[in-house]
């Protein structure tokens, strides 16, 4: 009987609907309720500091080179102690696609992705973040790493006293 199977199909559908009405919902009432993303979630980009408090970013331009949408621009400069740093650093979040390639390219672990995904504004120009908007006071992930301790160019410590360095050579020495 075709009519009986049709009724059965209707009731099965209704049963599934009613079953889900009394279940706990998978959606949440955003923005009243908020979900905590996982730590490796890729959202707003920050510039971190090294454990000694210095800026990690050396403005090497690798993030801007790897950025597929060209949303990062910067200018490097030299500090009085020889430290290379970003004179200005700008990320246009209106253009950013949060792919994470910049964080992957960063050799000093300065640029990192955070789980903060709420960066909507009414004015699109507010999405252009300058260095002071990006720079945070902590180390973020990898809290122990300080690039200049390993770089061998004598910024945070005298030349030849870094982590993997011998003392400077005496070129006028006669010993073999």
């Amino acid at each position, binding site marked *: 009987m075709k009519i009986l199977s049709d009724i059965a199909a209707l009731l099965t559908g209704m049963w599934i609907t009613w079953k889900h009405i009394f279940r706990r919902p998978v959606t949440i009432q955003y923005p009243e309720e908020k979900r905590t993303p996982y730590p490796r979630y890729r959202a707003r980009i920050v510039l971190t500091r090294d454990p000694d408090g210095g800026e990690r970013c*050396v*403005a*090497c*331009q*690798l993030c*801007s*080179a790897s950025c597929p949408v060209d949303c990062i621009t910067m*200018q*490097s*400069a*030299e500090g009085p102690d020889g430290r*290379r740093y970003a*004179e*200005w650093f*700008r990320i246009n979040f209106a253009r950013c696609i949060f792919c994470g390639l910049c964080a992957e390219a960063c*050799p*000093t672990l300065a640029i990192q992705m955070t789980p903060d995904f709420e960066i909507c504004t009414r004015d699109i*120009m507010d999405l*252009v973040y*300058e260095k002071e908007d990006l720079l945070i006071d902590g180390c973020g992930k990898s809290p122990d790493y300080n*690039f200049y301790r*390993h*770089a*061998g*160019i004598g910024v945070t410590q005298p*030349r*030849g006293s870094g982590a*993997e*360095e*011998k*003392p*400077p*050579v*005496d*070129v*006028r*020495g006669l010993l*073999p």
Partner: protein
Amino acid sequence: MPKLIIDNIAVEVADGVTVLEAAQSVDIPIPHFCWHPALGKAGACRVCAVRMMEGPVKGIQMSCMLPAQDGMVVSTTDPEAVTMRRNVIEWLMINHPHDCPVCDEGGECQLQDYTIAGGHGIRRYDGKKRTHINQDLGPYIQHEMNRCIQCYRCVRFYQEYAGGTDFGVMGSAGRVYFGRFREGQLESPFSGNLVDICPTGVFTDKTARFRARYWDYDMAPSVCPGCSLGCNTTPVARYRELLKSIARRNEAVNSWFICDRGRFANGEVNDPQRPRTPLIDGVESSRNEALKALLFRIAQTEERYGTGSIAIVGSSRLSLEAALLLPTLAELTSSGALCYFASEEESGRTLPLFQLLTAGRSASQRDVRESDCIVVYGCDPLQDAPMLALAIRQAWRNGATVYTVGDGISLPCDVTTVDRLDAVPLSDAKNPVLIRSAADIPDQLATTLHQHDHLKLAVLFPAANSYGASKLALKHLGVSFEQAISSGDIKGVISVEADIPQKLLEGIPFVAALDWRMTETVQAAQIFFPTTAWVEMKGTFINHEGRVQRFNKVMNPGVPIRGLDPAVHPPHIHRTAPPGGEPQPAWQILAAVIEGLGGELITEPFTGEWERLRGLDAECEGVIINDI
């Protein structure tokens, strides 16, 4: 002519050519650090290893040290050779610091490229790295000895090629150090080439320190405007700022190198005082208003003082395109004088010598390098055109005799001083070259040239396009501006990139100037148009020997982002043209003036006999013209 087989490709090369060059001749790349085409071999880096399968020598050999011989069968891809090269790179990286992100060479580093190409990505050796203390080598060169891989290129260039004595190699074994005995500025006028020649970041350009990366550079083939030699360069710009210049190879001209004077001369282009907006009586205005005012004042001057009261003044630093339009402009303004030289002195220094440069007579830098007898007569190449002194040194290294007529000329080689030009045994030489800058006794020079048909002449002119200016001055019967105003009829001047001293402009009521530099003429002008510098336009210069060379546009004109206020934050403003982007190439402004005066619209300055220069490629060796 040995015949050999490299990677299954049969190659025939000249005697004495190394296996490395033989492989390069058939586009087989072999990595190398110490070998350089201009410096030859040293056998220091061991990275050009290849495997000799058959022939007089067998096994792993250094291809840069081995002259090609008959019957050699070479493999560059043999696993043994590949492993050797990879291991060598790994050895070189043992002491190399972990500082690529803060190194200016990063991105244009030969060591970086070969390390990646060789497949060495993970450091296996966990011992400590040797370190060095750097030296302050003056305002142009930054020293970072930790990065050194001991290829000896710097010291071979500095001492052997350029004849410098204040830089060398010290220490032994693993402590080899390249530097000066004491800190201080490098004395050689060619020291900037250390930056180009170092395969890694030991020597970097201090003037462009931490400014940009290779992949962000605005670059184009260009020509140095510093002197009349026309050495080939690649200027580098970023954010509308000219950062540095790199030497560009042209075997006929400068070979691989350029002098420091040309290399470190970026200041004028980036100068914050550079005039960048059109001015009418000192008031900033638009290009169109200035053009209208110029046309009005030309008419006014003609009305008030009669025809022939306006002088059109070009210069020897003006590009050929604009220089070619000056006769048309002179005709339309019915001007009294068409000048290509401001002073009588410059005209006198240039024209008599130009007339001696008949077909086949002019010597290029290559001719100087290949000469066997060089006479430096009444000029100082190290002052007037340093690269010619370097070319003289190469000739001397190859066995040429260098004569100087008169005392007081220093050259980076041994010289024989003679009293008179007659005392030089020119008849015995095969390819003699005479170098001259000013013709105070041109008669004697003409006689000498007449007596020796094979004698070539290298003339050091005052500026980059002196040859072009002389050619046009002779053709259009131009006079020097100094001579033109002596009659007192000139009441108006249109100066196109000319350096007219203030005293020559006294008593001239109307002065219009086109320039990209803040000169005395610009300050005296009532109407001013900003023009583009050579790096901001496509243009043409004719060098001292009559070689036409094209230079391409490197960057857009405009105030560098670095010079904007506030300096550390480029403004958040959308605009279609950059601030200070008004400058136009001089010939385009001239074309607009010509159109405004009722002439034809000119879209292509090369017409008539110059037409063949239209498609000239900036990357070719240039075209010699002495028949136009």
